[in-house]
């Protein structure tokens, strides 16, 4: 077991975790932040994506022990005081989800995309979002949500 301080959603959390515990396990089981989901456990589906150093990464492939001092953001930290942020609002408005299982990851990927490229082109958006699988087929409305946020109602 390893003691570490993990900075999650701006708060320092003192933890004792297994040396081989993944970030996903620690988030879900130790910190009870269950927004990140396990869809495959092999980094192929993207349902577990969270932001580390502001970049979207599959948390099932990251060892928690490697992340001391690096900021981790999860879906639970995106809304502040119960107020949805603009991306979450855009997803609600566009209906950019169905079962919702991949939605936290998809929103975080979109957040990271817009922080890096405030006005991404469609191909950039597709490149970023290609790593999150969605079996319901919410992709068209996800693109619309992002477009509406950048360019106003209805998108570009």
């Amino acid at each position: 077991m390893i003691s570490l301080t993990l900075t999650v959603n701006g708060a320092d959390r003192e933890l004792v975790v297994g040396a081989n515990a993944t970030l996903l396990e620690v988030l879900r089981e130790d910190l009870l932040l269950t927004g990140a989901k396990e869809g495959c456990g092999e980094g192929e589906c993207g349902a577990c994506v969270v932001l580390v150093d502001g970049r979207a990464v599959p948390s099932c492939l990251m060892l928690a022990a490697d992340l001391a001092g690096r900021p981790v953001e999860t879906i639970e930290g995106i809304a502040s005081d119960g107020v949805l942020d603009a991306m979450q609002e855009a997803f609600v408005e566009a209906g950019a989800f169905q079962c919702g299982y991949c939605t936290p990851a998809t929103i975080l990927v979109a957040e990271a995309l817009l922080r890096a490229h405030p006005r991404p082109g469609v191909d950039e958006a597709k490149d970023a979002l290609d790593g999150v699988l969605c079996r319901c087929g919410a992709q068209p409305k996800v693109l619309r949500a992002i477009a509406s946020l950048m360019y106003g109602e209805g998108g570009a």
Partner: protein
Amino acid sequence: MTRYVGRRVARLDARDKVTGRAVFGSDVSLPGMLHGAVLRSPHPHARIVAIDITAARSAPGVAAVVTGRDFPYTFGSAIKDQPFLAIDRVRYVGEPVVAVAAATEAQAQEALAALHIDYEELPAVLEMEDALDPEAPLVHPDLEHYERGSHEIVPGTNINTIYRYARGDVEEGFAAADLVVEHTFTAHAVSHAALETHVAVARYEPAADGYTLWVSTDRPFQVRNELTTALGIPSNRVRLIVGYVGGSFGGKNTLIAETAAVALARHTGGRPVRVELSREEDLIASQLRVPAILTLKTGVREDGLLLARSADILWDSGAYTSNTVGVAIRGAQTVFGPYRIPHLRLLSQQVYTNRAITGSYRGYGTTQVTWACESQMDVIAERLGMDPLGLRLKNGYVEGDPYLNGQIMHGIDLEATLQRAAAEIGWGEPAPDPPEPHLRRGKGLAAMIKPTATPTSSNVVVKVEQDGQVAVLCAAPEIGGGQDTVLAQMAADVIGVPLDAVAISTTDTAVSPFNGPVASSRTTYHVGNAIKQAGEEVRDGVLDLASGVLGVDVARLDLDEGVISEHGVGPRITLAELLGSFGFEGHSIMAEARFTTAGSPLLKAEPGMEWMSSIFWMLATHAVELEVDIETGVVRLIKVAAAHDVGRAINPTTCEQQIEGGVIMGLSNALFEDLAVREGRAGVTGFLDYKLATMHDLPEIVPIIVESDHSEAPFGAKGIGEPAAAATAPAIANAIADALGVRITDLPLSAEKILFALEGDPPETTDRSSMI
């Protein structure tokens, strides 16, 4: 007038889902919970000679090790053929053999590694065609002795379902035809691949000698009944609690993760046990779309009038029947398509094989039969020199036509789906020249028809609390389709309250009123009609109460947006004020309703044939424009227009979600997904090799909502969801044929097959591909 029905209101589950607060089955965690894991069969067919659990039993953290002998129950809704854990024999690669519960997942996995099982391999039935061979090994030698429903089997064979249907005289029809075509098509098994794998938490309740389960399922009561029937206990000893479901698509409708969870929970002294399938387990050992071989012979007149069709369908249930029997009966009927054909004959047979279990999949057989029917329609059009759209319009059902059983088709508009989908891709206009000489462009379309399960029923309770908030109690889990939202929209309008005053309950079989499954696109229509009945009663109750309190004739009162008004006077009192005035005494207004489609005059059919009627019919057309690279065989979809007759859209956004999602699932099934089964073993272990369509694979998708007029539907709404994936694959194949002049009859439509087809050689790596 409606305030909410017909509007694009935000989904009720939106906030939970965009904040990560939605609790799915996979998020359930209980104090003292153990983790279950399952050792699975490595063989397609083998006798279990010995199981040594000694080392596993004493491994660190292990609380229980359970074999089929320890929990010797079997289940199955149509045929009781499936053990919870294999008993003496395994019948497919991946079958659960031993289950282990331990304090941690890692300990459970370590205990599995300590198990020792001796198998004696047996001859296996690896292909469905071989299952029919009189010399074939029997997958279930005891088939005829199993408990089962009333459907026909063939004792002493592997045939677990046989269904025949005939109308008119097909031979006469073929004789009168100017053109008779015959083709064999194959539809492959695909995985539901919901992002949430199958998961269950089970807890044994010693006092009641029963179980509480937290599960992800689309049919709580049916799964509960399957379990209580298997265990031979009354229904009140099992309680199913269902939260948000992370996708189902017809897959989460029977005991899957539940089998091991329940078997383990019985042996852990009341500690709950969680079983969550890995992605690999989910792909190879949950259930799959039923693969099929479909031979269609169709006779047509020179002018395109369809005269006769015979269909011979072979379905592969895999090792156990699960929910496939209805697919081989109800699903098979739609092989005749949405067309008037006077002379028909159907032989539908389903066989056991030593392959993965198959089951219901979005469309309940419709994706498979539509693939065959609509591929052949284009061959017919080509042979006759007809426009494929014209051929379909000439033969397509219109309002008032009799269905196969004489039921009068009501509330349908196939023609509008054909015309609008075709127009959207510029049907009849030549495709623009491709930008490169090695690219070819093509267009294609396909239509489909689907019934809904009939008759079925839904019960609801609607209650208005003292502060004016409305709770709708029903058992319709939110599996992603937006059903909570459309049900709330209808409730708000029927009662006359704001949408945000309405909550749709989650499901707990101990307290929820009965409902049929969230399947067959039945929820909006059936639960909606029940809400309409109970909601009207609640509204009447509110107005009666207000009449007494205000001293105003009830006929002069109206309830809208939670405010009671008097005609000619204006607002008098809010619902919250009215009920709140009762203070501590309390006053809640409640109504319950049961809606059933049984007995509807719309179901009237020829004597004895009413069981084939559907309370509503779902029609759709998908039209595809694409580009094929003749050097690589790679297909690039440019545009898919999908027009669906939904009756009326309660919420256009949720309808579009279903249509877009159906198209994406359909194109993903058709172009990419392949379990690569060889000798009974899947060649995939995860999403790296079982490829789903992703962002970059998607064309422009144009969902088109066609509205028709159904007299018994709530606000006119039929259903959408199940039909949405069915027409995509044949529309793509038809567009490929238009682009290249070659036809692939064997799914999936891989680049490799297209290249081989272009070269005129059969692909070496597939068994049954044929070209026309």
